Structure formats: C-alpha cells, structure tokens
C-alpha cells in the first residue's frame, strides 16, 4: 500500500524526531481539526510513564515503532491506512484458516473415499479370494484326482487376485503397524499354502494318499494363519475408516470458520461506521461488497461442510455398511461350503465340520435368510435398488440350504452308494447340485456388493467434489475481498490529498 510521510496533515513531528526522550504530546495540540477519541485513548494507553528512567535498546525500537503508528493514528488518512493493513491481514488470516480447514476436510474425505474404503474393499476381496480358493481346493480333492477345468481356473484366478490385492494392499497400508504385520505374515504364508496344495495335487494324481495330508496341511494353514490374517487386515482397515469418517465429519472446524468470519466482519463494520462518522457518507460500496463476500464465503464453507457430511453419511450408511454385510455373507458362505466339503472328505468323522457349518449358517442368515449378515443386508437396503438383489441372494441361500440338507441326508443314510451320491451332489456341475447353487448365491452377493460399492463411490465422490470447489473458491473470494477493501479505503484516503 502506498505510504509516504508527505501526505500527513498533522503538524506534530515529535514522533519523527524520535530519540530516547519520551514524548509527552499535549492531547489538545494533536491533529488540528481532528480529534478522534479512540485514537487518543489508544495513544494514551501507549504513552510511557515518564518516571521510568531507563529503557533497553529493544524497548526503544519497540517504542519507536509504536510512536510511529500512534502518529499515523492521529491523522484520518493514516488511520485509514492502518485500518486497511489490519483488514487485509485479517482477511488473509481468514483465507488461510478457511483454506486449511477445507483442505483438512478434503484430505479426510479423500482418505475415506480414495484410501481407506478401497483398502477395506481390498481386505475383503483378499479374504474372499483366499476362502474361495480353499473351498475349491477341498472340493476338487473330494471330486477325485482330475479336477474340472472351471475349478482349476477358478482356483488359479482366486490365487492371482489374492496375491495381487495383497501386494497392492501392502503398498497402500501406510503407517498402520498391525495391518503391515498381518500383510507381511500373509505374504509369507501364501506361497507355503500354494506349495502344499500343489504337492497335494501332484500326489493325488499319482494315486498317493499322502496328497490328502498335504491338502490338510494347506487347509490348516489357510484356516489358522491366512484367513485370520486377512481378517486382522480387515479389522484394522475398518477401524481406520471409522476414525476417518469421524474426522471428516467433525463439527469443531466449523467453529474456527465462524470465529474468523465474525472477526473480519466486525472490523469491516467498525471501519464503515468510522467512515460514516468521519466522511458523512452512508455507504462505502466496495466495503459493503467485501462484507457481503466474507459472509458469503463463510456461509458457503459451512454449507458445503454440511453437504459433505451428509454425503459421507450416506456413503457410510447404508452403502459402506451394505458392502460390509454382503461381503461378510460371502465369506461365511464360502466357509460353509468348505465345511461341507471337509465333512465329506472326513467321511463320517467330520462332526466338527458339521457343527461349524451350522454355526456359520446361523451367522450367515439363519433358516430363512432373514437373520445374520443377510438379515442385516436386508434391513440396510430398505427399498433401494439393491433390495431386489438381496432378495435374490436370500433365495439363493435357501436353495443352497436345501441342497445341503439333501447331501446330509444321503451322507447319513448309512449306505456306501448313497455316500457316493452325496459326493456327486456336492461336486457335480448340473443344475440341482451344490456347487452351481452356491455359485448362483455367490453371484447375487457379488452383484449386491458391486452395486453398493458404486453407490458408495458416487456418494463419496460427491462429498469430495463439494470440497474441491472450495479449494478454488476460497483464495479467489479472499483476494476479491482484499481488493475491495483496499479500493474502498483508498477512495477515502485520496480525498485527503
């Protein structure tokens, strides 16, 4: 801002003469034709006590600066200049606060939408790919030495996707120790698992029963290390997502925005009131415009926070919750299928697998599919588009239970031929067999998951877009405000030339 001494109208030069000598200006003499009590009051406040003898050098410099400002304050244009500096500074503070608050929100909401939720989905898909691979390996063993093309390719695809997702997850895990440890252990165990499965396969093909022992070893590794690892990964990511939802939607930063807005507004209004008194002009249009802009900026900031919060809430509930419930259902279905195969492999001594099947099915959907994870999914969908898909999944689930019941009947009939029939039903590929039924069920779950994920993405993107607009709007509006203030005050200052 322009600042020179020659446009000062007051005759008092005591301040400029400076020196260590404390000035003691006569209030009556200051600013002829101009007495602003506020200015006097302030200069009184800063007037040093003459009785204080010695002042340090730093104190002197400080004194000089204060004196200089006080000298400015005694003239109207000087006061206006100081005011415009203060206003610009306050507007800059407001812009910085608003920008930081906005970008903190945007980061948190990015973390939800771009990082944590995808990582959570990743953890879920690692889990289901592994569980599906294991169910396939066990079922293949049950079917005999020669697996079907579909099963083999399905198994390989599961492994590819599990190790791909695992390596991506390891890269993206960030600073979470627990998640990193889980991922490291899984990366260590996955090759061991596949090694055992392939040893089982090679031995099976040569008719050697030690193949079954390798399969058991693989399955034990899967159930006791890999799946719990995937589960831990999921838990860590779920907790982190929960935390980020909370920080992305917290209300405390709104207060900071409101406080700086009120401060800027107060100074703007005070300046205008001063101008009204001093210049007898009722409105200074640029300053009024600047005030309106400040209010507009803050209001739009708060409003977009609210919109973002609302959209995030929608992304979380039901979309994100629904993804969770359906993914859990999928994992449980695969576990039930593994149990079913293992019970048949155990051939009569698999009571523990049957008990686990029953417990798993309870968590999955109970008898009708209206409790457990499927029940939760049903409640979450309400009447949205996904509800049809979930209804389809419930039907698939009931069909699966029917086939399972028939297999159990055959298994318990106590006839070798019936047992073979049970195995045929469990491993067969025609319509009423267990695998195709499970696949149908699984497909509708997958469809539900991808629909809810799409919904999540659109909600989360909506939240992020709102904030993205702010990132541009805040600096532009703040600069506009500053320009208006300078312009508005400069008009008045020029009148004193």
């Amino acid at each position, binding site marked *: 801002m322009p600042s020179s001494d020659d446009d000062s109208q007051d005759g008092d030069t005591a301040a400029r003469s400076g020196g260590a000598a404390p000035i003691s200006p006569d209030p009556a003499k200051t600013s002829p034709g101009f007495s602003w009590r506020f200015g006097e009051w302030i200069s009184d406040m800063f007037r040093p006590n003459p009785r204080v003898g010695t002042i340090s050098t730093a104190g002197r410099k400080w004194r000089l600066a204060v004196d200089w400002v006080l000298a400015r304050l005694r003239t109207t244009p000087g006061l206006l200049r100081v005011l415009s500096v203060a206003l610009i500074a306050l507007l800059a503070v407001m812009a910085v606060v608003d920008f930081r608050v906005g970008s903190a929100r945007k980061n948190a909401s990015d973390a939800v939408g771009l990082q944590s939720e995808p990582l959570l989905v990743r953890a879920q898909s690692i889990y289901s790919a592994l569980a599906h691979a294991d169910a396939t390996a066990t079922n293949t*063993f*049950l*079917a*005999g*030495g*020669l697996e079907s093309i579909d099963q083999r390719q399905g198994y390989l695809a599961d492994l590819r996707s599990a190790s791909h997702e695992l390596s991506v997850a390891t890269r993206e895990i960030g600073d979470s120790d627990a998640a990193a440890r889980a991922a490291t252990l899984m990366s260590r165990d996955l090759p061991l698992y596949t090694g055992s499965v392939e*040893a089982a396969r090679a*031995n*099976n*093909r040569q*008719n*050697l*029963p*030690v*193949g*079954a*022992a*390798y399969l*058991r*070893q693989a399955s034990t590794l899967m159930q006791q290390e890999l799946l719990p690892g995937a589960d831990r990964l999921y838990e860590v990511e779920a907790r982190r997502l929960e935390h980020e939802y909370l920080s992305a939607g917290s209300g405390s930063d709104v207060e900071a925005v409101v406080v700086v807005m009120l401060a800027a507004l107060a100074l703007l209004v005070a300046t205008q009131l001063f101008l009204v008194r001093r210049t007898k002009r009722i409105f200074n249009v640029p300053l009024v415009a600047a005030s309106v802009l400040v209010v507009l900026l803050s209001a739009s900031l708060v409003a977009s926070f609210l919109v973002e919060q609302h959209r995030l809430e929608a992304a979380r509930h039901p979309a994100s919750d629904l993804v969770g419930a359906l993914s859990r259902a999928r994992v449980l279905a695969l576990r039930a299928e593994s149990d079913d195969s293992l019970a048949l492999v*155990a*051939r*009569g*001594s698999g009571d523990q697998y049957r008990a686990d099947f029953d417990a798993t099915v309870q968590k999955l959907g109970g008898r009708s599919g209206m409790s457990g994870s499927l029940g939760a999914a049903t409640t979450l969908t309400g009447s949205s588009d996904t509800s049809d898909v979930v209804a389809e999944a419930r039907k698939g689930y009931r069909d699966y239970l029917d086939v399972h019941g028939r297999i159990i009947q055959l298994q318990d009939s*106590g*006839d*070798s*031929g019936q*047992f*073979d029939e049970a*195995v045929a039903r469990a491993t067969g590929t025609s319509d009423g067999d267990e695998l195709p039924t499970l696949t149908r069920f699984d497909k509708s779950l997958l469809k539900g998951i991808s629909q809810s994920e799409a919904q999540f993405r659109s909600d989360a993107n909506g939240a992020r877009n709102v904030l993205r607009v702010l990132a541009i709007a805040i600096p532009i509006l703040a600069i506009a405000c500053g320009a208006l203030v300078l312009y508005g005050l400069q008009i008045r200052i020029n009148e004193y030339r």
Partner: protein
Amino acid sequence: MMRPRSTIVAVAAITMAASVAAACSTAHDRAAPDHLGGRSAAPAAATTTTTPTADCGDATASLRPQAPLPSPNQMPGGTYMRTIQERGSLVVGVDQNTLQLAARDPVDGQIKGFEIDLARQIAKAIFGDENRVELKAVSSAQRLPFVQDQTVDLAIDAVTVNCERLQCGNCNDRTPPFDEPVAFSTIYYDASQRVLVPTDSTATQLQDLAGKKVCATKGTTSIEFIRQYPSRPPLVPYPVKVRSDCLVALQERKVDAISGDDTILAGFRRQDPYTKIIGPPLEPEPYGMAINQDHPEFVRFVNGVLETVRADGTWSAVYSKWLGPFFDSVAPPPEPHYRD
C-alpha cells in the same frame, strides 16, 4: 564302548515298563509314578519285573466262535448281528490314509486296502453282500471312543491289541463310556513297530536318532514307545493327528524319522522312494478288530468269519494283494488264540 550295551538293557527295561504302563489295571495306577520318573532308571525295570501281566494274561486271546456261522441274512434274533442286519449295513471305522491297509483312492474316491477287504468279508457273512458296508473314516484318537459309544460296529484300523485297551480302552480318559474296556477279535495281522528315515540319513537304528525328532501318530502305542525310549538325549516325539501327516513332516524335513507299524511304513515307502526302514523290529503290534464289550456274540461271530477267511485262502489272497509285495510274498495267517 559300553554305551550301546547299556542302552539295549535300558530298552528292554522300558519295553517292559511300557507294557505295564499299557496294562491299566489298578496295578498300573500304582506303578504310574515310577514309569513317569523312571524313563531310564533301573527301579522302573525292577517294578516291572515284579508286576506280572497276569491280570491280563494273553491279551491277544479272544472269544471262541460258535460254529457253525449263521447263514447270511438269517442272524439269530436278539443278537447284535441281527441289529446290523436290520439296519442294512455294517458300520466300520477305518483309516483312509494308509496305503495298503486302508486308503482312499483319489481317482474313484473309494477307500481300499487289506483292512477294507477284511471288513467286506464280515459284511458278506452278515448280508451275503460284501458291499453292505459303511466305512467311516476315523483318526487314531477317535477309533476306540467310536467303538465305546457305538458310533461304529467295529474298528479295523491297525489297532494294536494290548492289556490297556482290553481293560479300559484309553486309560487316560475316565468319562463314561470312554472308560469301558474294549473287546477285540482274534489277531488278523502281526505287525511290528519299525523306524523309517530318508535315504540320506546315517542312522541305522533308533538309538542313533537320540535327540532327534521322531514322528508318530497321537493315540497309538508307537508314540508312547517314542516318549519312553531311553536314549540320551531323549528322542523328541512329534505327534500328529493323522498317520500320513508324518510322511508330510518327513518330506518337508521337519522330522528326522517316523516310527510306526511296518505295515504303515510300507505304505509310506511306496509313496516315497527316498525312504528306508532301519533297525530291528521294536515292538510286536498284533492287530485285532475292536468291538464294543457289550456284544460278546458279535466278537464270536467276527472270530468265526476270521476262521473261515483263514481256512479258505481268502486271507492269503488279500494278503498277497496288499501286503505281500512289501513283506514275505506268502505268509501264513496269524494263529488265533482263545481264552475259553
């Protein structure tokens, strides 16, 4: 060197100690602390020699069959065979991982082997149809409890007949019905405990493996033998749930050796040419079919079927089909012992 000699003496002592430990009468309970503390100590042997196994006698002696056998499908009323006949199938607990004895054929999913063929002979005697048999795969730890709670009619699963099992099934388990004695048929095969190592192993007998890990199946006489073997440092037992898990452990070099019945080891050798059997037979393992003690008439019936099978050459045929290639190609069936 005097070490081998002293070890052999100790082996003898412990073998006896083990057989007493196996005899789970009240005498066993009294003697138990001695066995636990006396892994290689002479006092244990002293106790052993003063405690005759007389309360058990010849563990392999079973009940004499009542000739002639009833015709198939005409089981006398009130007998357990009648119950089985009316049910329509004989439920047999077997293993499905022991090549030659009983193993699941990965190609057709059927369990096959020496023991399965014998089980079919019993089904054939009851139904006239050797396919009327339901095979339940059992683990070594499950087989006797399944007989005791009648989940299976009989267990044909390389079960060594000994006094402990005759008197209380598994003497460590005191919950009914698992504390009940188990009855056995006459011996259908005389196996013996041996040691299997990889071909690159320098060990030539069990004592060379002192301090090394030796795999055996839980709930078998073999794992007990490994636990009590008096080498210094002692053998490190590596118990597994299912027999064939031992072969996996050996192939992945997690253990240095497997100890088990020669029949089972023969199956392992067939699956892995890089293994060899070392040392002398360690302990006789006479196999009997385990039957619930409440059905003596069924024990007699099974013994009758075994008599027929031995006499008409079926045993020899089944033997040469499954076990002959690994042992003596022709062997006489074990002589039945009866206690009445």
